[in-house]
């Protein structure tokens, strides 16, 4: 082929995210490479992860920057575009064969939320490369696709003149993470540097965007993530009855690396978690998709109603302790009684009398904390006598950094 794709840069404006991709990194140890796709380096979609925020890109023309190399020195300039290989027009015969189902060997329709790359002409320099040229995306549809993990494949094509046929060159594949908004703290967008470990991690986005898939609002996304984390019990994690309900992954900061190892079937920091861990996991993963949650405590030393701790199917006060010295949840806003909590650590009784059987399990996700007697989260968690001691402790509101 006379032309090849040399590199594709999706995140070309480190300060923005409205017309380009978000700043991300792989994980704590490994920064992401920019350009995100490089000839000879990127082979499958996971080699070229990119992330976009629905809110910030809404109504914008999203662009990327691409560099090409010519292998035919007679080419001075060409017109370039990229189309979805599954929907690539290849002429009447191709369309007919497709309609008849006679070309099953072609790639299945890709999960392409980035659309196509609009054609434009590029010129080659004496060193056979082009500059990084800006291309506009056509049919960018992450808003209609919603939060999730997608794969975009592009068939790159060139032609030497407007009346000439398009010639196929490379196919590139990209793993696309779609978030509601730009990730919020502890995640950062600047500085875009290898040493900034607080850039959103691909390894976190892969779980968070899957767990929140289909969500259209921040509350919905956070609720789905809360459910997903709670459902990790009992196979992956369970409440720390042996260790007194102590923090395993979130003191003093969030050991997301260990938690990801656990999610991948490894040891991590072990199988036990407490409320601080769950609050930190939920809020950190939810904030990666653009939610705005905090970790905050309530207390101190209050009696408990029967509940289902994460990983347990037995209605009892946590580990039969009768009380919590404190409890911590993912919480909205100022983390007051008026605001909603997302608690993956336990299910409360959602019935009319949470102090006694029969119990009906309710996962507190987007549930107002409430005042005693309101029938909200506080009443369902704490005994009538314990509710006054189960006060929102807004001074504990924080977002733990990740490592």
């Amino acid at each position, binding site marked *: 082929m006379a032309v090849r794709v040399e590199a594709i840069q999706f995140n070309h404006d480190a300060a923005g995210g409205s017309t380009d991709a978000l700043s991300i990194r792989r994980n704590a140890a490994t920064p992401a490479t920019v350009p995100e796709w490089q000839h000879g380096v990127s082979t499958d979609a996971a080699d070229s992860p990119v992330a976009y925020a629905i809110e910030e890109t809404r109504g914008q023309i999203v662009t990327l920057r691409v560099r090409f190399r010519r292998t035919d020195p007679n080419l001075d300039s060409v017109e370039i575009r990229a189309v979805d290989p599954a929907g690539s027009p290849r002429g009447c015969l191709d369309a007919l064969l497709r309609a008849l189902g006679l070309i099953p060997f072609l790639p299945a329709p890709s999960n392409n939320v980035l659309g196509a790359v609009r054609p434009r002409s590029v010129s080659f320099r004496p060193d056979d490369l082009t500059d990084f040229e800006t291309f506009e995306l056509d049919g960018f549809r992450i808003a209609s696709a919603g939060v999730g993990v997608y794969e975009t494949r592009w068939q790159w094509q060139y032609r030497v003149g407007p009346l000439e046929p398009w010639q196929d060159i490379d196919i590139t594949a990209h793993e696309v993470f779609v978030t509601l908004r730009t990730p919020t703290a502890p995640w950062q967008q600047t500085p875009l540097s290898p040493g900034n470990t607080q850039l959103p991690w691909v390894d976190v986005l892969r779980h968070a965007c899957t767990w929140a898939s289909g969500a259209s609002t921040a509350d919905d996304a956070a609720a789905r993530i809360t459910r997903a984390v709670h459902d990790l019990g009992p196979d992956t994690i369970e409440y720390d*009855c*042996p260790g*007194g309900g102590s923090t395993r992954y979130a003191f003093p900061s969030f050991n997301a690396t*260990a938690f990801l190892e656990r999610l991948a079937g490894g040891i991590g*920091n*072990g199988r036990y978690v407490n409320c601080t861990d769950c609050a930190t996991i939920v809020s950190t993963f939810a904030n990666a998709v653009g939610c705005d949650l905090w970790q905050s405590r309530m207390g*101190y030393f209050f009696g408990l109603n029967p509940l289902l701790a994460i990983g347990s199917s037995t209605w009892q006060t946590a580990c039969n*302790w009768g009380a919590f*010295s404190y409890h911590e949840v993912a919480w909205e806003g100022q983390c007051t009684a008026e605001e909603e909590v997302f608690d993956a650590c336990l299910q409360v009784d959602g019935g009319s009398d949470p102090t006694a059987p029969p119990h009906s399990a309710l996962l507190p996700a987007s549930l107002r904390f409430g005042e005693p007697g309101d029938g909200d989260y506080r009443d369902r968690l704490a005994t009538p006598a314990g509710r006054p001691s189960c006060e929102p402790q807004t001074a504990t509101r924080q977002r733990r950094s990740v490592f």
Partner: protein
Amino acid sequence: MDPQHLAALEQRHGFDSWRAPDTEQDSFFVWRYLIGGRELPGWRPHRIQRVDAPGVPPGHHSIWQRTDGRGRVLLAMDAYETVSAAAARQLMITLLAEFQSPLVERDAGLGDVGFTVPGEGAVLLARGNLVVLIRNAGEETLALNDIARRFDENLRSSPDGRMPWEEAPAISRLDIAPGPARVGQPVSIALEAAAPTGGDLWFKLFGPPGTIETLEGGLRFTPAIAGPQEIVAHAITREGAAASRTLRLDVQPTAE
């Protein structure tokens, strides 16, 4: 840490009775601590990770598996090096605030100060300026008090010197600033050592009654009693090879 939570925990655990270390006892200090992987006999580390975070002393978090591979048992051991024994006790309260159970109890048989939970599934202890938290992390669980006691005994024992001498580090300097040491007045301790391979070292210091602590990265000792005394320093490699050196000082009474 939330002052309200702190106050509740201090009251619950009688913090006033153990807030201050007993300076009439011999002093023990750990400097530049690291977990090398031999601290728990019968166990091998799956991961040892240094953890630095604002507001918390430097720590090492580690996960351990049985060397014989029996059972689905895992141990988690976290260790934090504080600047003094008093700071270690403050950190104990901070760590107690990470337990949701209201049933955490003091255990007089653990460390200088120790706590455990019913079933001994978690142990928190302070020895000198070091704070150690040992917990079950696997599906099968063990009572941990004995494991914690063995760790503690090993920690406060002198290195046995059984490692080959060629692997031992060398202590090149152990002295104090010129001039008389006096009761109640801190003196700086200069301690320098190197491993033959250039690897990391940590140190144990055994001293007379008083306080050994670090200030701005340097060691200092505040004697509690007068008279001729010794501070013994051990430099230890990650593999456990050790060297020892003794500092003798004649502590004068407090100046009139």
